């Protein structure tokens, strides 16, 4: 992860140097704003990774003698066979279609969106899957 952090630092520095150069060459406010924020994007991820690697220590990807199996194991918790993302995405899609096509659709989409959010967030807090 040290290496990942360094990659984002390099890109952040690149954008940081780009901003004044780009402004000097073009005097284009749009691109300058975008480049400044792109610096922020990489800087933010770098800051998080550097902060985290200091807290939890370097991972196997930082060592030359690491074996692939050292990176094995659980990556995180991904809710299996959950239908809630589908409900949420369908509600969101209908909502944004409503904004683009006709606002009346939003009134019908909003309950699905709200139900999708509720269902996803509370999936393991209620009903037959409750276990907390």
């Amino acid at each position, binding site marked *: 992860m040290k290496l990942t952090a360094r990659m984002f630092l390099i890109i952040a520095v690149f954008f940081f140097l780009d901003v004044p150069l780009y402004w000097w060459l073009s005097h284009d406010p749009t691109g300058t704003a975008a480049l400044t924020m792109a610096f922020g994007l990489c800087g933010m991820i770098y800051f*998080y*990774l550097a902060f985290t690697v200091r807290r939890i220590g370097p991972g196997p990807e930082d060592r030359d003698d690491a074996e692939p199996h050292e990176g094995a194991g659980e990556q995180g918790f991904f809710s299996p066979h959950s239908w809630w993302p589908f409900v949420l995405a369908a509600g969101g899609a209908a909502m944004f279609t409503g904004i683009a096509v006709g606002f009346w659709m939003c009134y019908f989409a909003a309950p699905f969106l709200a139900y999708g*959010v509720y269902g996803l967030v509370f999936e393991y807090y209620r009903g037959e899957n409750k*276990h*907390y």
Partner: protein
Amino acid sequence: MAAVATATATQAAPAHRVPNRPNLVSVGTIVWLASELMFFAALFAVYFTLRSVNGDEVFKANAGHLNVPLSAVNTIILVSSSFPCQFGVFAAERHQVSRTGSILNFRRYGMREWYAWAFVLGAVFIALQVYEYSSLVKDGHPISENAWTSAFYLATGFHGLHVTGGLFAFLMVLGRTYKARRFSHDQEVAAIVVSYYWHFVDVVWIGLFSVIYLIK
């Protein structure tokens, strides 16, 4: 059947006890927030582009409609909401859900009390922003008036929507603590990533406030 946890649904050991791997939820949140930064970059670009096309004078004249003291107070309210949010995270990290002392004893607050404070401050921010919008519209400056009003309402409005989303996120985190019998690692992670989001929205507002209200 309800009391039986299936093997797929149980969370293994807390991710921070697994050596050398960050929690994927927080990594995902940070990457998503970085992309959100680019969303706001587009809004800043809209503002600066319209400004360069219309001329600085037009924008300065329009920014004269703004009630800067009101927004300054509002900024202080939003920025101050980050503190109870962070104290809520500290409480969540020591797995203290609710207060152990009286409601006036801040030192014994748990996550619920701190997050409720952050929620109230955020809600006050939104209320004042709605008041600001309504006064601007009443003074004859709706979003359709000119380029400046378009840029102003879009930039601050999308930020307001983000704050509103954060308020709902606070409610979800709080709701989970009431639904569950114990404070789980799952809830702790959710509380932490919601705080990331809240701090991010705060920082974006500082940027918006400086550009739109202070620099004009």
